[in-house]
């Protein structure tokens, strides 16, 4: 799926959880949301984007959440 759209969507999710005071908890929540609601096709695309393009365009916390809590 067009990665630009996924980046926008993932950043929106990141924006919501950015308000969570505990950074570690925020990352778990971001990754949890992606795993709960995103189809594996979408998960694979965003993980590939993080691995191959250093997650360009994604907020740092979202990149960290994907790197630390999601296996493609």
């Amino acid at each position, binding site marked *: *799926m*067009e990665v630009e*759209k996924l980046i*926008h*969507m993932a950043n*929106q*999710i990141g*924006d*919501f959880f*950015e*308000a*969570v*005071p505990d950074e570690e908890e925020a990352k778990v929540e971001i990754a949890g*949301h992606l*795993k*709960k*609601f*995103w*189809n*594996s*096709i*979408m998960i694979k695309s965003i993980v590939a984007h993080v691995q191959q393009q250093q997650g360009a365009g994604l907020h740092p916390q979202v990149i960290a959440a994907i790197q630390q809590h999601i296996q493609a």
Partner: protein
Amino acid sequence: MDDIKYTPSQPQVLKYDADKDYGTPKSDSSVMVTLNIDGVDVTVPEGTSIMHAAQLSGVTVPKLCATDSLEPFGSCRLCLVEIEGRRGYPASCTTPVAPGIKVKTQTPKLADVRRGVMELYISDHPLDCLTCAANGDCELQDMAGAVGLREVRYGYEGENHLGQAKDESNPYFTFDPSKCIVCSRCVRACEETQGTFALTIQGRGFESKVAAGNHNFLDSECVSCGACVQACPTATLMEKTVIDAGTPEHKVTTTCAYCGVGCSFDAEMKGEEVVRMTPSKAGGANHGHSCVKGRFAWGYATHADRITTPMIRKSIHDPWQKVDWDEAINYAASEIKRIQAQYGKEAVGGITSSRCTNEEVYVTQKLIRAVFGVNNVDTCARVCHSPTGYGLKQTLGESAGTQTFDSVMKSDVIFVMGANPTDGHPVFGSIMKRRLREGAKLIVADPRAIDLVENSPHVRADYHLNLRPGTNVALISAMSHVIVTEGLVKEEFVKARCEWESFVAWRDFVAKPENSPEALAKDLGLDPQKVREAARLFATGGNAAIYYGLGVTEHSQGSTAVMGIANLAMATGNIGREGVGVNPMRGQNNVQGSCDMGSMPHEYPGYRHVSDEATRALFETAWGVKLSADPGLRITNMLDLAAEGSFKAVYCVGEDIAQSDPDTQHVIHALENMECVIVQDLFLNETAKFAHVFFPGASFLEKNGTFTNAERRISPVRKVMTPKNGMEDWEITAKFSEALGYPMHYAHASDIMDEIAALTPTFHGVSFKKLDEMGSIQWPCNAEAPQGTPTMHVGEFVRGKGKFFITQYVPTTERVNTKFPLILTTGRILSQYNVGAQTRRTHNVVWHAEDRIEIHPHDAEDRGIQDGDWVDITSRAGQTVLRAKVTERVQPGVVYTTFHHPGSGANVITTDNSDWATNCPEYKVTAVQLTKVNQLSDWQKEYRTFSDTQVELSGMDPHTVVF
């Protein structure tokens, strides 16, 4: 009733009969009073009228101006009684019961007076009973018989009201003043039941007459709800269908197929023909009231545009080929198999609709999960209330509204946010208006002045927070800030019922200075003082209830706003009892049900995640197949992948994504890219114009099933006529499944409900048998709540402790600039429904023949736009042209339109921006520019040509088919 007569000393348990008219409303008092009526002791609640008590005990008192949906009026003088020891002949409708009184309803004197009254009425009434449309269904006729009227001594020659012209302006009913007895039932129904106050008694004495506005019904304020027609005791106000067809001979109680109120109706029939739909008094949601859609706009079911034969074609540029059911189903099945073999399992999916019954939705998602083998099923709630499902599950633990509709009658403060009940949910709107006329306070948060703000008689918003579109979360933060910093939190409730840590984090967040009304004033465009006052009222005004709609959910922060609303309710202790709560106003009749039934790609029925091992095992055992643990694609994801070329087939049941989903050009591109689009619908809807297989569907009058309304009320839909297409919709899906090698063994829709009940804990106690007994059931209904659950979260939240979430305001990326300086927001109107496929095929078009763009006089003047001008609306996504309506209802900088007509192209301009959690589209905020033009947009012209060609390819005539 005989028991009462013969055992007068025994206290009687008096049962209500839904079909009986008790003359005056029921009293809710718990204090009981015993009196004696015609020699029989009767015990009733204090405040009951003598008439009502008599009817309860089985004694019928003659009456004309009284009916139990209205307050007593005491004008007809037919219901007079004698009370031992009291002077005169009091009217039994206006006289309350008193302990120990002895009432006589029949004496020679009373008979004499009543005959005299009837004699006067009949002396000024046309004696055309045999040819009158109310013959056999006329209370005047009944009363003439009951009092034994045998002659009219005055003759019929004197001055009278006979021969007056009929008002036939309303498309659905006539007003014949010559038959009017001026009982005022219609006037009172318009006031008390509907709350519109369109009717009045004009003139005095002999000159008195019922009048609708200055001219006629159609030009008046009348909203054609039918309450007056329902209340009329004669043929004065009469349905045109009854005038044409005669009186019905049987009736079947069913549920309306329009909005989320889910009104109960009696389909009054002659054989298999509907003569009229009347709101049923026993209806748990509507209590005998209705709106113009449910009451009158059902003619679409037999409209000439209905397609009743299955059709197939290879390409969307080919003519449709009419085939039999087997061929159509086998073709569709072979295409699904081919596509999955060629492109992979995940290349297919399906979309259910809130217009489908629970049973249809259940079998459709079962087909997709169990037979297609994927979780790619979604529903139109994606584009309306998906944030409600997410937000309320997170905070309260269940994806549903917390109250009954009647709960509003115990509210002291009503907070309406991004909802327009009098247009979108009119029957509930009437209940709400009644409570507001009784004195409840009203806060409206809406960029536009909806009717409740100041356009409803005797109702006025105490605060209209006309915020900038897209700033709901900022408003909730600002109100929460006031509640927290001014010490208005109900800490006892929070301590007992909620996760304290989550509360502390939320409290500390909203208390930050950047969340104050003053700091957010610029974003909101609101006077901070007004926000403070509204917040104080909400927190301290008594029972406070929040009603919200798509103006909350259809934003990039829709889910955040829903969670913010739940936070507000919990912080102020307004949840878990009557009169309070969080109430999502569901757009369509079965939004709640279609979500309950597992339409969302990540959830099985009952909101259980597909990755949950125990739930998956349960369904794998019941369905006998292996199921996927991978959350499926949402509608938007399916369309994106289709546009890219990897998603190839969709089974679309009752949904019209080409008209209702945002960014039409993207949707159309996606549809054109697919190899097999299967549409199941009544009409060749917009999506069907891009389809390869058309399964003709059955209307709600032609099938059995259930709908679940906004208050979680499961109500039966009953078949009153043979499906014109030959099958109920669940049967089509089941046959499709069989053709794919997975037979579904159901003999009746009730078997499907039995399976749902067996597999879904909140539905364990639901069955068609129980629905027949109870009329309707509010889920959860199971061993713990065998009679259902009117109010949720009493004592404890479904998730245990309520959880507060931090709701940071994040402005939408859809921003105004010099190129697109106005914000377009969208809404709906009373007479039309959703994409209009149904209502555009009824006489309702007389009230709303086209969608218009509302613009403030300042913005109009700047652009040289006058009322009625053609206006081009251009956004980042596209452009369309609509006629302007210049009005101060919208604030400067904001424009507004409805989306009921496909030719309007409202969704050509909406963008693909969506809610962060659910991808619910941001329909409510689109940056646009408006310019005066003198013709339709290129898109509109091209689309009209395309549409006409498609109609021709289906064998119909584009000149006669409704566009």
